[in-house]
């Protein structure tokens, strides 16, 4: 039986962490989760086969730590991997975790009826089979550098005994997705929509119970409120603090702040094609030299400073520093507005009618920049860019759009420029989706600016295909340089994420791509506990 031991008695075991967020999970069943917050919660509830190591290496299986899988065996041809499950692992309803559960996790992702948004992530896997009750085998179409990552990280086992008979076409309406039974360190307690999700430690977790008793995700309607709750002591942790609020948190004796890097990078992306006649280049931004001149006109360091103070750096190229590939060897376009003006003059863009805006052949140097209404930092950047480009005679109008409206325009490629940011997977190959011709041709690809450079494409392809990590890195660097020189987008900043938390909490393993990876190891020393830490494991009154 599950002992309801008085918690807090054993040193650092016990306590409640309230995580403040402005986002609500969408579902709590891994194959259909799309939102980051859904993923965060489900990562506490559902265990993976293996976990990526602290080095964040996604190539091969190096550094991966066993979770549900005790160990794994590669087939000689590397086209299949057999995962052997830990026999101690069990679902929160007491049933053991079996190979069929792994297969169920994969099948749900692949079933067209489910329409899983995760399907592309497991596209390389052909199938998952059950060799015996404790051994599941993943079969691949072809070999690749991150094939292990794909199965171990992306195929998440789910309880087949509970999901075997669900209506897959209506999975989203199934009670399970809001009331899940998992296999991870925390068990699900309740989910009050728009208010909270509550998890409690599974004291029978086979790898040892988490130190915390309870994790509550407290959902605020907007980011400001979320921060406010931390500052007011109503919550204990927030994943990101910036500017003003960071300064406040730093001053607060009850709070700690912690930098943990991040994988996001933001950029000003140009549409290289004419938004009205897709066959033609953009009348202003289609010219590489114009783009370079614009880049030269932007004081990106000052912009980053204004928005993030010291908590952001200008990226080296189209990949975050945390992936460990891009570095200072990449040649940058310098900030030099005088040179930018000269360059524009020589390109024939001159202000002939004295309105402060350059024109060429009657076309004014004018374009609009889209920015989502939901992102304050990006809106701020837009205003800064607008003013700086005005200084060199370029007229920028800001198109602040509701997120959905923006998506619609991106889909039809009907825009001039856009301030965007990516949160890439921890593998460099994700650049394909976002910046190569492959990403521009399909309507749902994410290369919205239609940057189609054969040189860049070839460099990326060879880097992705490379089996040697070192060689891959060189190839990637070369591709990044091509990108910077062509300036299809101007990299703006790469924020250094700073989490804020109550000083009570001993934070462990805030991973750049998933700050929640270490929650099971977080703790609160007995001496520093407050009311809510003393609830213990007892269930809610209702």
């Amino acid at each position: 039986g599950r002992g309801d031991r008085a918690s807090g008695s054993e040193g650092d075991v016990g306590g409640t962490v309230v995580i403040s967020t402005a986002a609500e999970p969408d579902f709590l069943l891994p194959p259909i989760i799309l939102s980051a917050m859904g993923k965060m919660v489900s990562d506490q509830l559902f265990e993976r086969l293996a976990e990526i190591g602290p080095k964040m290496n996604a190539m091969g299986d190096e550094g991966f730590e066993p979770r549900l899988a005790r160990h794994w065996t590669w087939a000689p041809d590397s086209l299949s991997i057999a995962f052997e499950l830990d026999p101690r692992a069990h679902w929160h309803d007491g049933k053991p975790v079996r190979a069929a559960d792994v297969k169920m996790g994969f099948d749900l992702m692949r079933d067209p009826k489910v329409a899983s948004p995760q399907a592309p992530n497991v596209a390389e896997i052909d199938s998952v089979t059950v060799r015996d009750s404790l051994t599941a085998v993943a079969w691949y179409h072809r070999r690749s550098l991150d094939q292990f990552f794909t199965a171990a990280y992306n195929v998440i086992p789910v309880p087949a005994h509970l999901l075997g008979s669900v209506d897959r076409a209506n999975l989203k309406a199934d009670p399970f997705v809001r009331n899940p039974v998992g296999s991870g360190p925390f068990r699900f307690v309740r989910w009050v929509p728009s208010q909270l999700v509550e998890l409690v430690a599974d004291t029978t977790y086979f790898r040892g119970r988490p130190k915390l008793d309870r994790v509550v995700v407290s959902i605020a309607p907007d980011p400001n409120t979320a921060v406010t709750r931390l500052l007011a002591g109503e919550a204990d942790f927030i994943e990101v603090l910036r500017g003003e609020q960071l300064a406040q948190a730093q001053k607060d004796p009850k709070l700690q702040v912690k930098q943990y890097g991040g994988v996001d990078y933001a950029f000003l992306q140009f549409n290289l094609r004419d938004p009205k006649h897709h066959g033609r280049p953009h009348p202003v931004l289609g010219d590489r030299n114009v783009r370079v001149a614009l880049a030269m006109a932007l004081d990106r360091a000052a912009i980053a400073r204004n928005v993030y103070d010291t908590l952001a750096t200008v990226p080296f190229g189209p990949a975050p520093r945390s992936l460990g590939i891009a570095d200072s060897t990449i040649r940058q376009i310098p900030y030099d507005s005088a040179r930018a003006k000269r360059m524009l003059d020589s390109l024939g863009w001159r202000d002939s009618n004295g309105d402060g805006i350059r024109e060429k052949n009657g076309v004014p140097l004018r374009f609009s920049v889209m920015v989502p209404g939901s992102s304050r930092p990006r809106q701020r950047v837009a205003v800064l860019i607008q003013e700086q480009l005005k200084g060199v005679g370029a007229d920028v109008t800001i198109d602040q759009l509701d997120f959905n409206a923006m998506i619609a325009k991106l889909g039809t490629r009907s825009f001039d420029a856009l301030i965007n940011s990516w949160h890439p997977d921890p593998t460099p190959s994700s650049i394909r989706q976002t910046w190569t011709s492959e990403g521009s041709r399909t309507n749902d690809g994410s290369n919205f600016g239609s940057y189609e450079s054969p040189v860049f494409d070839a460099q990326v392809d060879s880097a992705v295909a490379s089996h040697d990590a070192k060689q891959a890195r060189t190839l990637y660097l070369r591709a990044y340089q091509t990108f910077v020189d062509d300036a299809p987008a101007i990299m703006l900043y790469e924020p250094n994420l700073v989490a804020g938390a109550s000083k009570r909490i001993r934070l462990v393993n805030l991973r750049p791509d998933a700050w929640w990876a270490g929650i099971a190891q977080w703790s609160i020393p007995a001496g520093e506990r407050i009311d809510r830490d003393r609830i213990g494991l007892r269930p809610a009154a209702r």
Partner: protein
Amino acid sequence: MSATSGPWSVALRRLRRDRVAIGAAAAIVILALAALLAPLIAPYPPNAQPDIVGMATLPPSGAHPFGTDVFSRDVLTRVMYGGRVSLGVAVLSIALSITIGTAYGAVAGYVGGATEAAMMRLIDALLAVPRVLLLLLALALWGAVGLPALILMLGLTGWFGTSRLVRERVRALSRGEFALAARALGASHARVLWRHVLPSALTPVIVAATLGIGNVVVLEASLSYLGIGVRPPNASWGNIIQEGSEQIASGWWIALFPGLAILVTVVAFNLLGDALRDALDPRK
């Protein structure tokens, strides 16, 4: 009494003796002038960012009486320019809604019968949707709307009350004796409506419009606060507050001054509207 003592000049004379009304009108004139003349008298250009690293979010000082904002822009200048937008949007949208409301209400009230009943049922329904929600829906769904569209939306959602008011007055007046007298003289319906009914029906509308300007200033500010009103870099009092509300602890001045501008404007328009209503009240 002088030869010109129509109802309006009587009202004007009464207003001139009302100290509160004078004060309110003066406040409105000052705010309006500051807004109108902003390009001439504002100390700085409205969008210039002299030093985004060194001069951002400076507290009020001699050089910047209202301080600077996160972009190192002068808040006083922004508040003056914001007034152009806030007051301009309010005045124009009220003008629009008054026009529509008057036309609609006048037709309904004059025609009467089933047409009137149907027209008024529609108004009932439209009045049942909270205006904020309607605007939220329209503005948020369409995303980027410019100032003209914003004015249009505010105008198009603001006339229901006016139409009711006008319809009631027109209904009463057009069945009243002087309208009947005009008809007995052989005046056409258009003439009766235009010359006899409408001028008298408009008195409460003008009062309502005065009070309404305050409402729209607040409404525009609320929409901008919700992030769907006037879009940057256009300054409006609402979106300056919105920018400022994020800096409330380190840059309280950014939100405070436009907030005060709104408060003064709305109080002034309310006082003026009340005074106008009193001055036009024939019972006094």
